[in-house]
């Protein structure tokens, strides 16, 4: 198991090359390149408006890119539709939780599970035994995933009645339902307290130990330091720094982007 994990860590799962996206005249992402190694937890940091969410949208196929390539396990995916990318094994959550209104927690997660465990429409239509069995399997798998995110007790509740932190965990379970190889988490701990954030962190670690690769957008420097193996820092849609969390946080450009540069600091001191 450990040997396999070590072998996996050497291979590149996701390779983004010179990807670009413009909204009107604004370059949300421009010429960005990065790689995510298989079996790692990769972090994406950057100030507000740096283009982090746009990057996640480009990788998951929610937005079409203007230029560049994205390779996932050797397949070029930048021209594929979102559902084809999901079928290849990329799942995601959203910065502003996007659960389906009117569905129970269990149904939300089941919606993700049908990708790998569905049956043909005719089979369900005719009520064939295999369709019934498949549906039971989907439900059982969804319950397993809910257990993983500690939401079994809430399974039959409408998702919109849950707390914010719980809704975020429903989203993670729903994404896991698609049986991904790469999980994209867009600010999974936004609006959470310290304890909830730590729980998400340990969930991410246990997922990685189970063989999943995770790419997470995260603001919280402490969490990035604690949970990510590798960090990419973005600013104004471009790559600012790339490396281990410690390297990135110590990087002068990153310091400047987050806390202002030393010249600014001197000027502020002079004003006092």
């Amino acid at each position, binding site marked *: 198991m450990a040997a396999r994990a070590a072998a996996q860590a050497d291979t590149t799962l996701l390779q983004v090359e010179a990807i670009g996206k413009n909204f009107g005249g604004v370059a949300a992402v421009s010429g960005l390149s990065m790689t995510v190694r298989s079996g790692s937890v990769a972090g994406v940091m950057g100030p507000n408006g740096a283009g982090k969410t746009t990057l996640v949208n480009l990788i998951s196929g*929610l937005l079409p890119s203007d230029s560049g390539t994205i390779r996932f396990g050797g397949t070029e995916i930048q021209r594929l539709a979102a559902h084809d990318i999901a079928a290849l094994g990329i799942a995601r959550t959203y910065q502003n939780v996007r659960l389906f209104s009117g569905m129970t927690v269990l149904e939300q997660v089941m919606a993700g599970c*049908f990708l790998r465990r569905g*049956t043909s429409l005719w089979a369900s239509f005719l009520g064939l035994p295999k369709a019934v069995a498949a549906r039971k399997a989907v439900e059982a798998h969804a319950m397993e995933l809910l257990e993983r995110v500690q939401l079994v007790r809430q399974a039959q509740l409408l998702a919109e009645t849950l707390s914010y932190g719980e809704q975020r965990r429903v989203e993670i379970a729903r994404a896991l339902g698609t049986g991904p190889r790469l999980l994209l988490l867009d600010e999974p701990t936004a609006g959470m307290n310290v304890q909830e954030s730590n729980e998400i962190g340990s969930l991410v670690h246990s997922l990685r130990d189970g063989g999943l690769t995770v790419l997470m957008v995260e603001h919280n420097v402490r969490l990035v330091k604690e949970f990510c193996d590798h960090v990419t820092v973005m600013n104004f849609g471009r790559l600012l720094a790339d490396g281990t969390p410690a390297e990135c946080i110590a990087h002068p450009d990153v310091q400047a982007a987050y806390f202002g540069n030393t010249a600014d600091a001197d000027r502020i001191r002079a004003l006092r």
Partner: protein
Amino acid sequence: MQPLVEFWRAYQSTVAFAIVNAFFALSTYSVLSAGILSFATVTYAAMGGFVGARLVLLTGLDPVFLLPAAMLAGAALAYLVALIFLRLDSHWMALASLALILITRVVVINVPSVTGGVNGLSLPVSIPLGVLVLLLLVAIVVYHRLSVSWYGIATRAVREDPAVASSLGIAPRRIQTIAFAISGAIGGIGGMLLALALQFLSPDTYFVNIAFTMIAGVVLGGSYHWVGAIIGAAVFTALPVLAQAVIPDFQEVANGVALLLIMIFLPRGLVDPRAIRLRRAAREGQGEALAAAVPAVAAARRAGGDAP
């Protein structure tokens, strides 16, 4: 006993039309449940109605055996419509489907070899009410199965958020194309049933009046569950008949007022699974809180008594 029999005689045809309208409402519900507002059911109904009626006249077979032909004709037409319509944004799609109704009437007038043109078609056979009821039961079983299968969850996902559904591997276009085909199949059957109930078809049989009944039925019944379509269709078939009996002068006004009242006070319709779930959750929440606060109640509950 006698008044009951008379009542039944008088309103038997209303029940038959309520069932036919239920098919139209289910057809509209099929696409609405996948997030598409389309009036094209009228066109599928015309297809199924004229194809079915013409086949009855040509073959002389029992119409029940020809229903599959009407169903397939409707589904095939709906598939073609889906190929074109799914390129449009939602509000344009609704408008385009209205245009389709107008085109349908022109086409019906201009292919007299099938439709009888302006003179219409007379059908020598009818369909017993029992068979209509049976067909509705079959439709109910099918819709129930679909709604609890992956397709039911997938359509709701596509309706609520197509982008998120797509990122879960659910292809919105594919789901919506299936929804169109189902809508066409059930609309085609409804069209043929209408032909058999009326025993006469003219270019005006399948026109905007059907569109009104079906959309009103779905809005009233609730567009979030298939039961709503059936209930809504029944109400909107019975309403004009009742209004005719009670306030004959205001029959048409009553229709419109009823629809307005529903939209204002019950925007999600009579049958709303979300509200039912919320109420149930609230009740259970209350029950739990009460049980926690008063041990005696909890004990009574455990004992199986229905303590208040």
